[in-house]
């Protein structure tokens, strides 16, 4: 009897490898790499496109085109800073049960993952618009209804709502694993609560803060559904510009925008996870 040259394990592993990589290639890498290819093509729609750097040239030299890219990163950094404070506060409050109905708050902090982002945008428009509770409240207080429609505020709020669960979950996961005895010991030695938080708790939260920041940054850069409802023409972000260009038939320029976003998100991920954590990456 002829002996099969490969063990059953090796064969199984090979088949699995081919199958999984094939599926991954078709459903994940394929579409992304096609976008990269389109961004270097002179004309996709003509079907006779050649290699070109024209679209990147336009993207980085025309203010109307690179403006949305800058807006995207500006909004993203504001949102990351906000989430470092607010997301951490909520995670700490819920995990350490510092508030009433902590479990309910913990569950509700995931709500914007479950709700479609376009609904989030509409909710903001309803709440902060001229006919919403915010305008009524400011009218009651100051005699002047304030509407945030088409302002920077509502855009930042939209990104905050959309990214908020990612920071809460990342920080919360680390908080759950922390040994509270260290904090109790410090407090029993006379340290004030804030001092304990800043010198003992916060340093240990670093992996959660970094992981949360990466997620918040990536999510904010990519945010589309809520943004398209609330953004003004002046503050248009890159995903909106991608949509506009694609709708106008300029797939090449839309692809160039997409590649820039992909590269920035990837670099942010690598830098923040490798350089900052030095092996402390939260999994």
């Amino acid at each position, binding site marked *: 009897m002829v002996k099969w040259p490969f063990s059953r394990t090796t064969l199984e592993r090979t088949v699995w490898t081919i199958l999984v990589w094939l599926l991954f290639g078709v459903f994940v890498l394929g579409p992304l790499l096609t976008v990269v290819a389109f961004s270097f093509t002179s004309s996709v729609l003509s079907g006779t496109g050649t290699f070109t750097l024209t679209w990147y040239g336009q993207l980085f030299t025309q203010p109307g085109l690179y403006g949305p890219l800058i807006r995207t990163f500006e909004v993203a950094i504001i949102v990351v*800073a906000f989430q470092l404070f607010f997301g951490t506060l909520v995670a700490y409050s819920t995990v350490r049960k510092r508030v009433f109905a902590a479990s309910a708050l913990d569950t509700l902090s995931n709500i914007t993952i479950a709700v479609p982002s376009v609904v989030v945008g509409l909710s903001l428009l309803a709440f902060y618009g*001229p006919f919403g509770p915010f305008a009524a409240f400011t009218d009651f207080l100051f005699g002047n209804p304030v509407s945030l429609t088409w302002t920077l505020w509502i855009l930042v709020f939209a990104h905050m709502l959309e990214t908020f669960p990612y920071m809460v979950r990342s920080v919360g996961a680390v908080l759950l694993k922390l040994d509270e005895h260290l904090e109790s010991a410090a407090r029993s030695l006379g340290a004030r609560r804030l001092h304990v938080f800043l010198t003992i708790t916060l340093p240990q939260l670093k992996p959660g803060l970094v992981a949360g920041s990466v997620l918040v940054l990536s999510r904010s850069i990519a945010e589309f559904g809520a943004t398209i409802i609330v953004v003004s023409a002046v503050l248009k972000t890159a995903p909106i510009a991608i949509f506009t260009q694609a709708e106008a038939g300029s797939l090449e320029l839309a692809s160039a925008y997409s590649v820039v976003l992909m590269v920035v998100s990837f670099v942010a991920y690598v830098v923040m996870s490798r350089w900052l954590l030095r092996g402390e990456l939260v999994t």
Partner: protein
Amino acid sequence: MMRPSRFTIVILVIAIGVALASVDLFRLEKQTLVLYATPALRDLLEGFVVPHFRADFSVDITIVYVSAGEQYNRLRISGAHPEADVFLHASPLFLEKGFAGGYFLPFTVGVDATIPATFKSENVTGGHVWYAFTWSPLVEVYHPALGGPPDLASINMTFGFPHPLLSNNGIYAVLFYENVSAAAGLRALAHTVVQPANARANILGVAEGDFAVTLGYEGVTLFYAKQGARVTFGLPILGGQDYVTPVIFSAGLVKGHPNPLASDFIDFLFRDTVQANLSRYYFRSVLPNSTAPAGGIPLPAPGAMTIDYNWSNWSALEKALPKYVIGG
């Protein structure tokens, strides 16, 4: 000396980033002049008006091109914080309607005395609701193979009736038919399968063979014809009679406009340099003794009947619009 930790450096970088980003975003929001404009004006605005205004006033300008109806609705949900400073539309209907709704301010341009009455709104307290800064005749656009403009009274081929609730082009088409022959309008609608949402899409519909005939703007048709699009045009003919309907591109000043240069921009539109260059972009000047653009229809046309509308009567004009929506 104690070396700052990596964590402290990151926090500092983020803090500086937030400060710089906030300053830039607020600056952009406060200092940018936002124009809501019809796509029909894209080349005129981007090719001439905006670069020259920017050079004179050193201001960032953002132009938003969406249909008139969408822009009006966007303004309505703005409350006291409008996004736009200036509206540039192909008809004054939404400007009159918006003024009645409290969304626009009356104003007076510096050259008011030289502008004919048909190119500005009736007098209201504080000036005028709108001024037309350029115009173009409504034309019958058709495929060159047809030889000449088919008579709209007996049209028997595919028609592109522009969407009357979204586009000003649709408004002009409805008003034309309602004033000349409502029966012919319904006949045109019966031959319509595609309803373009703006004047450019309308002309491209003929060029690409989506329909054989439409009513569009001379300026937009010339723009595409000069680029090689297979379209031709003439004055609309209905029952053997030619008609001249001026499509008036009007400027309105948004109430609560955030940018103080909004009025300067409108005044700029009436400067001799702008008015003298309109024909390069296939439009016509509103100042007396203007000439037709190259390839445009010489006016006045002998025997043609001119139709002007009383835009202040906007609610009556608007009533007929919904019945020209397919499936509406």
